[in-house]
């Protein structure tokens, strides 16, 4: 897979659909109506997307996007229960995306979890400021990711 820099914004949507199909397809046990919580992940690194997908796929419906360019459309379409954002994204960075989510979906319960390589204290504070509910740094442990996801979905 290529890094999504050149192929956007179209790539993000095209990538999203097969992923959903794949998710649904691999969970044949699931009923025709999937009631599992929905998680949208925005990360420009395909490896990270793959890992998160593998880690969360079994328990959640996972949607992937490599940029936030069409994020509002995706959100309206899927109405996820949790959004996991990278910070260093092409065109619109994660903090900006979080701000957009918080202003556009005030009513909805749509917590945002940052999963990023930015470890500076200033970044953590910015994350808090734009309304994120959690902040994990890369490289992350699976147990930390599970813990955060469960905590945020339970809230």
């Amino acid at each position: 897979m290529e890094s999504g820099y050149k192929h956007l914004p179209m790539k993000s949507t095209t990538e999203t659909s097969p992923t959903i199909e794949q998710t649904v397809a691999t969970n044949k046990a699931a009923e025709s109506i999937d009631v599992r919580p929905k998680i949208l992940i925005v990360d420009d690194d395909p490896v990270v997307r793959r890992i998160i997908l593998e880690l969360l796929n079994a328990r959640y419906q996972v949607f992937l996007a490599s940029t936030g360019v069409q994020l509002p459309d995706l959100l309206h379409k899927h109405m996820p229960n949790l959004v996991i954002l990278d910070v260093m994204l092409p065109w619109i960075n994660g903090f900006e995306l979080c701000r957009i989510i918080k202003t556009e979906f005030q009513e909805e319960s749509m917590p945002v979890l940052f999963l990023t390589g930015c470890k500076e204290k200033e970044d953590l504070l910015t994350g808090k400021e734009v309304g994120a509910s959690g902040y994990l740094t890369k490289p992350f442990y699976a147990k930390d990711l599970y813990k955060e996801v469960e905590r945020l979905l339970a809230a």
Partner: protein
Amino acid sequence: MSDAAILAAQVAALVILILVNTYYLSRRNRKKDHALAVTGKALDATVQFLQAMNELPLGLPAQDLQEHLWNRLQDILRPMRIRSRLWLLDVGWKTLRGVGPLAGQKVTSQHLPMGACPALSGKRSFQHTRGKNEPCASEQFTYGKHLCIPLVDGRESFGVLFLAADSPKPWDAQELHLFNVLSQSIALSLQRRSMFDKLQEKISELHFSFEVGTSALSAFDGSTQSLKETTDHILDAVLSVLKVDRVSFMEWHEDEKVLMTRCTRGEKSAEHIPLRLAWGEGIAGWTLQTGEAYWAESAMGDPHFSRGQNELASLLCVPVYSMTREPLGVINAVMLHQTRHFSIREIQFLTNLSRLAGLAIENARLHHNSRENIHHLNEVNKLKSEFLSLVSHDLRGPLTGIRGFAEILKQQTMGPLRPAQMEMLDQLERQVEHQERMVDDLLDLARMEKGRLSVFPTETDFMQLLKEEIDNASITAKERGITLNLEKHRTLSLSKVLLDAGRLRQVVWNLLNNAMKFTPEGGQVTLKVAADHDNLLIEVHDTGAGLSSETLEKVFERFFQVTPGGSKGAQGLGLGLTICREIVQAHGGKIHASSSGIGKGTCIRFSLPLKNTIGQDVAA
């Protein structure tokens, strides 16, 4: 003789006597009247003369004043048929200069040598009467007589008043008196004028000194700025003091051996064609070669003037040298239209200013160089910081992948794993963690170079933190056959300590791993904790390689590595202890290393101040 005849004769004699007497009397009276008239005239003339002189403005040019004096003189003397002329001293030319036109002159020259008139040198009147003695050289007409009266006031001589008449009859005392009074009046006027001139001179000298001082200051003013501003300041100072039309600075380029125009100020400075002169070429080049000021009232006719230079009238050049007598350039002060005689004072001013200019230009160059260096260093430093951030970010990216996939495998959703495979994955994860810490160290270094590494203290259970770190380290310890101990001294609860937990973990991890790295199999690493009311004391002690006294001082320096004999060689970046010290110091604490010597183990000890509200006494 008859009586009548005698009587008649007597009467006649008496009448004659009376007549003679009367004649003589009347003649004496006439003489007296004449004398009186002359005296009165002299008085009137003097009063008028002085009045007229008084009415003249003080600032009247000297030549105009002299013309006025002569005109007044003419008014008085013409009715007496006396010709007059003023021969006044011209200090500049060292001659006597004639004032007042004379028709039919014998000598056409307006100038006479100073010694031409005996009255001036002798300071006494000189009188010539035709046939009696030789006329003096100031007589330019053939007169019956002439008189030269020195114009003297006190000790100062101004020249000679020349008077002449056609009649050879000598002047009488009254006339001479009148002439003397007139000459004194003229001398008085001239003296007044000369005093005014001297005063003016003094004022302008003062003014000049003031301007010289100001310009000297302003020459230095710009020297902390750019070279251009510095030279502009200097040139402006020259412009304002010397009141020349244009000034320029030509810079000497040692590498090319040319003198080139660098800055031009003043009239039409934009139109000035920049010059390129070789050493000794042209007036400027000559000045630089001789090292002395050079001036030419008529510049284009000067033997050193080189063709191709701009049109100009007069030129004053001074060389500019550095403190070490290396040529820096030449300052040119130029008169474009009218020729000008530069005074000694002006030349001295420019010579002095050139020394200051040398200092200022050198100063500006130094400033410029150091500024450039600082700028360059800042750029490099910025690049380094950016590079570090980027590198550490990019280094962390793959780690995410490695750890992620290892964890996915460990979940065994892709298939079951054998215990050996599982253990390898654990190893893999620990390597990732180690790598991650090193990347973090790099990032921290970048942070430290930007400023202080910042800490965000929160309430932390410190004992729990230590236990977790010991647990983490125990896997490595087990692998290496090292015993890990945790000792707690004193009875203070450390469950609510205010510190940056993440950072303290970093310190403890670094110290433990360092200790294990340099401790051979079978050795011991001990972590001791103690606390009193003020301080938290932590000590990591090992039974490893130890440190010499020289290396003890260096262990906290960046990139310092110890490669003890027989060890696995240097591992890591040599940043761990540097960062530990930074973190401890950011908490307001102290850290230091000690060792009993090579092979006798090392001890790193640090203390953190405890805030009063945090440490709580608990019964043992």
